[in-house]
């Protein structure tokens, strides 16, 4: 018996004028799964993320979350539906503090209205306390609690990446999309990030990761989907995908030899 997928796309296509970024892309993420999305640069991976999170409207096809169609909804609606993400190019709120960055996300789960916050009712104050505590919890989760008051743009690169994760998690998502979370990191930082990803997984959140670091993909992902030039060329367990000649040809090539050396 197959369980209902959390995220499902069918026939998803995205054309930018004459450019075919994605065509007929179908994939799914099961509840509590970690799925890796790999492929050469320009394959359409980030475009796919932008489609799922509502920053783009698909040219054709459908995206569903828990059986309900989300393609065509606005980005903030989809965030409220339980999808969160980090960005390939860090998109923090630079002039806001680390804590403020995460508090904004925490406010997604606010039960008070904007008006009551503006007036400053007792209820809204209490809730601010609660959300602040939650934001601090997420900062500690990624290990930057001590940097709460620092302006986000002043953080070191690795801490900025961690903040992105904390901010995305504070919205309380069912599904989190990580776009190259270890981009530009050294092996020890990558190991740290892998730990965070595992701990996110332990919380029951489903994860979809775009990555180029094969060690991470092979080490963490339960399923891997391979994109090349806008089309899916393989999917399956990491070990199988690694052996797929199409994938090797398109992408893994040299890395397969490295993997065999492990």
């Amino acid at each position, binding site marked *: 018996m197959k369980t209902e997928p959390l995220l499902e796309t069918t026939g998803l296509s995205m054309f930018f004028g004459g450019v075919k970024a994605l065509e007929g892309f179908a994939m799914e993420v099961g509840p509590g799964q970690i799925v890796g999305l790999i492929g050469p640069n320009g394959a359409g991976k980030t475009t796919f993320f932008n489609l799922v999170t509502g920053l783009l409207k698909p040219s054709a096809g459908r995206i569903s979350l828990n059986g309900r169609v989300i393609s065509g909804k606005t*980005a903030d609606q989809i965030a409220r539906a339980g999808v969160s993400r980090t960005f390939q190019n860090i998109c923090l*709120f630079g002039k806001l503090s680390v804590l403020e960055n995460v508090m904004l996300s925490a406010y*997604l789960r*606010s039960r008070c209205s904007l008006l009551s916050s503006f007036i400053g009712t007792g209820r809204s104050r209490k809730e601010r306390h609660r959300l602040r505590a939650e934001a601090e919890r997420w900062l500690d989760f990624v290990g930057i609690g001590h940097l709460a008051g620092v*302006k986000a743009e002043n953080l070191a690169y690795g801490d900025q990446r961690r903040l992105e994760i904390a901010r995305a998690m504070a*919205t309380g998502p069912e599904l989190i999309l990580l776009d190259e979370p270890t981009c530009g990191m050294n092996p020890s930082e990558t190991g740290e990030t892998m730990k965070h990803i595992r701990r996110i997984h332990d919380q029951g959140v489903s994860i979809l990761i775009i990555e180029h670091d094969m060690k991470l993909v092979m080490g963490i992902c339960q399923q891997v989907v391979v994109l090349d030039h806008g089309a899916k060329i393989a999917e399956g367990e990491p070990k199988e995908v690694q052996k797929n000649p199409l994938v090797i040809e398109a992408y893994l090539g040299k890395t397969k030899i490295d993997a065999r050396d492990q």
Partner: protein
Amino acid sequence: MKDKPSAWLWWLVGLALAAGLPYIITDAYTQHLLILCCFNIVLALSLNLLIGFAGQISFAHAAFFGVGAYTSALLATRLGISFWLALPAGGVMSAVLSLLIGLPSLRLRGHYLAIATLGFQEIVVIVISQWVSLTRGPMGITGIPKPRLGRLTISALEHWYLLALALVALTVLFMIRVSRSRLALELLALRENEVAARSMGVNTVKMKLIAFTGSAFVAGLAGGVYASYINSIDPYSFTVWVSAIIILMVYAGGVGSIVGGIVSAVILTLLPEFLRPIAEDQFRMVIFGGVLILIIMFMPEGMAGFFEKIRGRLVPRKFPEV
């Protein structure tokens, strides 16, 4: 949660001191200048909501000021409606009109948005000066009645100053409440990175509209008070040049800073007057322009940012610890 009670104390002290000013400075012309400062403060603070918090740009602020003035003046002179009712009507009218620029602007950013608001500003002035049957065009509206409070008609300069100061106090209260609420977080997130804000669940459409209509409403209120104070208005008091000066007040004070907005509005209102005895008319404005350039060059984060830098940390806007 640190809601500093001492901050309120400072504001109250400042308000009390400000309220006492016209009894110390009794020269009529200076009192008139102080009243103008009040109007400029309200305009600068309300524009700050749009520029400083929401990170949008608008050249149309004078238009909203003018729409509020004209609405209030017309309701009072044509329909005999009391000042106290005409005033909020002016505010609402400005807010409604701001949707005309707010809605189409949702897709525009940066320079394109600036041009669109510039166009809107020009259109409003043209409509006011051409719609002669309604607004008497270039001849303007005269004989705008003064507000009555019980048996007192507000005509003495001291009383006008207090009324204007009350408007300032309300605007400051409004801005402080915004800056301490969830609204500030969402607006600032919109300003810093719109795409990320949307992805984190901020309804940026709603936020932009709130910022546009909120700032326009306050500007409209200020317009209504101004119309009654100045007694007669014409389209040329509400041109794009006025918009530009208000924008400069916002940047000179420090985008997002309430105190900065107040200080820069006062300085930039009084500066041309202080230059009057020193230089002739044309040179006066040249010097004024020069001062503005110096501010932009040496205090790019505005006065508020400049002082924060001196204090060792750079916070270009006053957002209290959450």
